[in-house]
């Protein structure tokens, strides 16, 4: 049984032989792990179960002074945060798209790695990622605080901006669906540590109808829909499931009850993430990490769960804590029986 099949079983609650996993690392954390495994390919060490195809959020042009420009024209300052950076300036100074030209959704770079990735990691579950897929893309272009006030000041502009972003994404989704992929993962953070950023009323008015269009493009092709949305957003799960969501990430244990949600959404919504990156991984002992990992694996043993830390492993996580959860997931009996 290959990893792709294990993932499909987990996503359908069909008693996978073990809980599959997919772990991403920030650059400094990866360097720490690589130093421990000199000369080894970390893909071989970690044995992830997903392969990401497409460009995700990672198409940038280096413009110097520790800054990069993404394909939408947003400038990111990476002088401090090396992985993503912080938006610099304001691409859309006025509440208007006049004069702004969206990037080509079908540009060759978007699909450049698809065939190669599928060939190299063909045994894995295939995900096409669209990072900053809606609200986040809008605020990176307009500024977070400005977009928040635009909800009240310029509602028609917000509707137009969000729908234009969705049009771009849907064109891309329709093109990627020609490949043998399994799911599309949208990235869009809506939460704060406690509650939604914009509240349920504005979310339903502005974001929900556009999500429905985007998810619909994936669902109608018979593919799965994943969303990555940081923060306390579980009040939206029923609405999201209603428009086709299949799997939720990052499933942060500090902001939602992971132990209750897996059984509560059995056969409705799968979860991907769950291991604490705000407390256990940076501050816990090896035993704390092992205990929490085992608990999560137990929760997901009959399906509906993909193990991962609730964020790309941050740089402040001790090496021994990384090794601890890797050891736990790779010593699941069902996995050992298959390798």
């Amino acid at each position: 049984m290959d990893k792709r099949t294990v993932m499909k079983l987990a996503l359908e609650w069909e008693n996978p032989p073990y809980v599959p996993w997919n772990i991403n690392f920030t650059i400094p954390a990866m360097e720490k792990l690589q130093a421990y495994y000199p000369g080894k390919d970390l893909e071989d060490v970690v044995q992830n179960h997903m392969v990401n195809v497409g460009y995700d959020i990672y198409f940038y042009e280096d413009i110097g002074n520790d800054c990069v420009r993404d394909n939408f024209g947003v400038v990111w300052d990476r002088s401090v945060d090396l992985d993503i950076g912080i938006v610099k300036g304001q691409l859309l100074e006025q509440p208007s798209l006049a004069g702004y030209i969206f990037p080509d959704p079908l540009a060759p770079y978007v699909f450049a790695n698809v065939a190669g990735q599928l060939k190299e990691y063909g045994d894995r579950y295939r995900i096409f990622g669209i990072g900053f897929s809606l609200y986040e893309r809008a605020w990176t272009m307009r500024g977070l605080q400005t977009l928040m006030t635009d909800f009240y000041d310029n509602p028609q502009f917000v509707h137009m901006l969000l729908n234009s972003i969705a049009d771009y994404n849907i064109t891309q989704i329709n093109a990627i669906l020609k490949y043998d992929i399994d799911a599309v993962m949208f990235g869009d953070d809506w939460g704060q540590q406690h509650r939604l950023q914009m509240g349920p009323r504005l979310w339903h008015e502005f974001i929900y109808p556009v999500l429905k269009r985007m998810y619909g493009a994936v669902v109608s092709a018979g593919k799965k829909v994943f969303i990555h949305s940081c923060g306390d957003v579980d009040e939206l799960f029923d609405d999201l499931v209603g428009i086709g969501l299949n799997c939720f990430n990052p499933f942060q244990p500090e902001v939602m009850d992971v132990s209750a949600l897996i059984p509560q959404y059995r056969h409705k919504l799968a979860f991907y993430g769950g291991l604490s990156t705000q407390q256990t991984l940076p501050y816990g002992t090896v035993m704390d990490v092992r205990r929490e990992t085992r608990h999560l694996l137990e929760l997901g043993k009959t399906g509906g769960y993909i193990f991962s830390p609730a964020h790309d492993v941050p740089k402040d996580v001790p090496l021994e804590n990384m090794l601890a959860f890797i050891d736990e997931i790779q010593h699941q009996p069902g996995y050992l029986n298959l390798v």
Partner: protein
Amino acid sequence: MNEMLKKLFDAILEGDQHAAAAHVQAAIDADIDPGEILNDGMVAAMSEVGRLYEAGEFYVPEMLIAARAMQASMVLLKPKLIQSNVKSAGKVVIGTVKGDLHDIGKNLVALMLEGAGFEIVDLGSDVAPDKFVEAVRSQERCLVALSALLTTTMPSMKNIIDAIVAAGLRQNVKIMVGGAPVTETFAKQVGADGYASDASKAVTLAHQLVKAA
């Protein structure tokens, strides 16, 4: 409440900056005491914004437009407050800690504190310990509010507090901390005087710390 101040209160609550400015000007023109305009019209409205936020009726956008309306009113009222020698609720030196560029949380806290009548010294984001020390040194007494979004930058909070202690200024300040991964326990560990989980609770905490100073 005076009818004019009630209109000002409502305009701020609704986030209508133009109406708020018009009502504060009308109140000034009617010779209402500037301290009364501030406290009964503006601070009371922002306090209600905080209550509605905690009750789950307001979210960040509503908080932002209310704060903007309050600021539009404050521009007109400030000269009158100075003339009348109305004292602020206290001074707050605020910033995100060294290494952390995420400033929306810090901005919300600053807006809500300003709405509660505090004077804000906003040092911005990615602020080094010596900048906080410098800012604290130039104040007689003040609150220091530190914000961090990331576990990787939370240790900077301790560095800043240690720098304030090393400069011999700790007794002049009360220090509050906040940000998504920050907890009450962490606040105690690094030697802060208080922790607030959101912008509204930060206002309550700031009042408590001023009282305790």
